[in-house]
């Protein structure tokens, strides 16, 4: 009897899994609903500025980022009240950070891999290069909306990620990953919303709420520019980082 019940349950689960779309369908659909392959391929640079709030803690700040492709480069400048400037960047091969709190440092190990991955222009289009495996695991509700939950295995490091894509719109609504930091690994959940046109037919979320440990951090984008002129010098690391690179 128990064996029969178990068989029925397994059969039901298999049937349910079979109803789920393949992960590649979900990921490719996200590319389509946010602009399409051609629009992503035409994107060469990006500029963004916004505000940051440590919810409930009374800490606010600003963030400005520049991205460029071929090769992938990034520069992120964050200014937090009471903490000062946190400057970081990547060249496609190396990633660095410089702040009054931690001093200048070159990122290593998984922290560097994650920084390089997140700095990648047009990452949604390149998911096949980024992940070695992608599986649709379940259908779950996020904020009352049915979503597909995907498990993603990055090629360059072993920490699996999860992502929730809305069934109806195809848009990414939530992601969960373990972030490597010099202080240790930190689970990070990110909710994204408020998708808007940013030019060139592309759409991007203008609101992001992240939960790391006891802290919730809300980022609101004020402006995002598609293919702006970005002076190459923006991506030059500051002198203290250059000293480390030369060491």
């Amino acid at each position: 009897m128990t064996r029969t019940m178990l068989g029925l349950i397994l059969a039901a689960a298999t049937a349910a899994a079979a109803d789920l779309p393949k992960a590649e369908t979900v990921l490719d659909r996200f590319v389509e609903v946010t602009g399409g392959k051609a629009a992503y391929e035409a994107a060469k640079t990006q500029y963004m500025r916004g505000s940051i709030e440590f919810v409930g803690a009374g800490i606010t700040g600003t963030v400005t980022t520049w991205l460029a492709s071929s090769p992938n480069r990034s520069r992120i400048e964050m200014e937090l009240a009471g903490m000062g400037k946190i400057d970081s960047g990547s060249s496609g091969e190396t990633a660095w950070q410089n702040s009054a709190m931690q001093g200048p440092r070159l990122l290593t190990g998984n922290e560097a891999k994650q920084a390089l991955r997140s700095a990648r222009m047009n990452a949604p289009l390149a998911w096949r290069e980024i992940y070695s495996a992608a599986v649709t695991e379940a259908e779950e509700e996020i904020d009352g909306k049915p979503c597909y939950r995907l498990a993603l295995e990055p090629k360059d490091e072993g920490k699996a990620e999860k992502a929730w894509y809305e069934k109806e719109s195809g848009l990414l609504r939530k992601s969960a990953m373990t972030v490597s930091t010099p202080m240790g690994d930190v689970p990070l959940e990110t909710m994204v919303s408020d998708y808007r046109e940013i030019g060139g037919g592309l759409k991007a979320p203008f609101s992001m709420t992240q939960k790391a440990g006891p802290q919730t951090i809300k980022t609101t984008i004020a402006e995002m520019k598609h293919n702006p002129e970005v002076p190459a010098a923006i991506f030059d690391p500051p002198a203290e980082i250059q000293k480390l690179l030369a060491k």
Partner: protein
Amino acid sequence: MLARTLLVCLLAALAAAALDHAVYVTSFDQMWSRIRETHWDPAMNGVDWDAARAELRPRLLSAKTRKEALALFADLLARLRQSHFELIPAEAYAALQQDAPDEGSPGLDFRLLDGQPVITRGPRQGWTIRRIGPDPSSEIAAKTGKYAWHALHRRLRGKPGDTLTLELANGRQTALQTLALQPAPRTARFGHLPPIPVEIERRPLPGPAVYLRLSAFFEPAYLQEEMRAAVRDARSAAGFVLDLRGNPGGLAILAPAVAAWFLDKPASLGAYRMKNVTLQLAVNPRLEPFLGKLAILIDRYSMSTSEFLAAGLKDLGRARLFGETTAGAALPSAIEKLPTGDAFQFATAHYTSASGAVLEGAGVTPHVAVAHTRTALLQGRDLALEAALNWIQEKENKP
């Protein structure tokens, strides 16, 4: 009589109306939930948290005054019997925010010796402060208690440019000392904390050595600028004296940031255990650190981030500690505002030093126990600093 009774009833009704119970209950619930969701210990330090709520919440609903309501808030926090669980009433906030732009210091410091405030730094070292200002009622009685020093410290501050007259005594005579209040080099504004003056004192010492006193761990850019200058000055020095006496802490991440100037290899000053994650206070060494003898001065008013730094460098065998056992208030924390306008501080992690020692309630023990004495202070001596300099001048190199 009837009119009087009606008036009393009306006033009572108004007083009750003034206390918006819904707001106080919402605030209580926020505090209770936030602590439950962030406290690292599933057993809540032995406190039945649900029972505390069940007992205090109904009492809050029948509280008649704001004072009564706040006492219940404070009661909830006190039950944990841990540092960094404090209520900051809105009134205190308002006063501190208002005073902050006028934050001026008389350029002296004191410690309570036998309950009496004795000047440890500044003019007339070793003299006892008997009165602040001309008002006869401002005579200072013997002070004891956890926050006695902090409370008195605050009374010595005021608007920059104003003068402060102190009545001092040295056992044989009394004197009036008038001091001009100077603005703090920096005032930290961080989150929901009231503005905090930040002073960094840097000077050469015989030895030769470099002396650096940090009043608090805020204003990272200013701190790093001074650290860089101090380490540059120390290039040809035999030692470095880092004075953390009276330092109440600040941003925890600045403990490894300061340690980075004294280590040449990555290290950890200890670990934070939060509810779902453990983080290391990881040190990212500077390119050109000071690797000579490092003495750290601590006392019973060195707290939190001061304790992380002192304990971490002690455990790593990098520093020799002089002074008194620290406060043992060593839990990383956050501050949140409540709908009532009050704020509450709550610890979010348990800290253990690199050797696994728990500092909360125990403090950091110095290698060399030495405290101020009135006699030595009157002779212009600082016994902990002297002990540190003697060690720096010794040939023995071990901390």
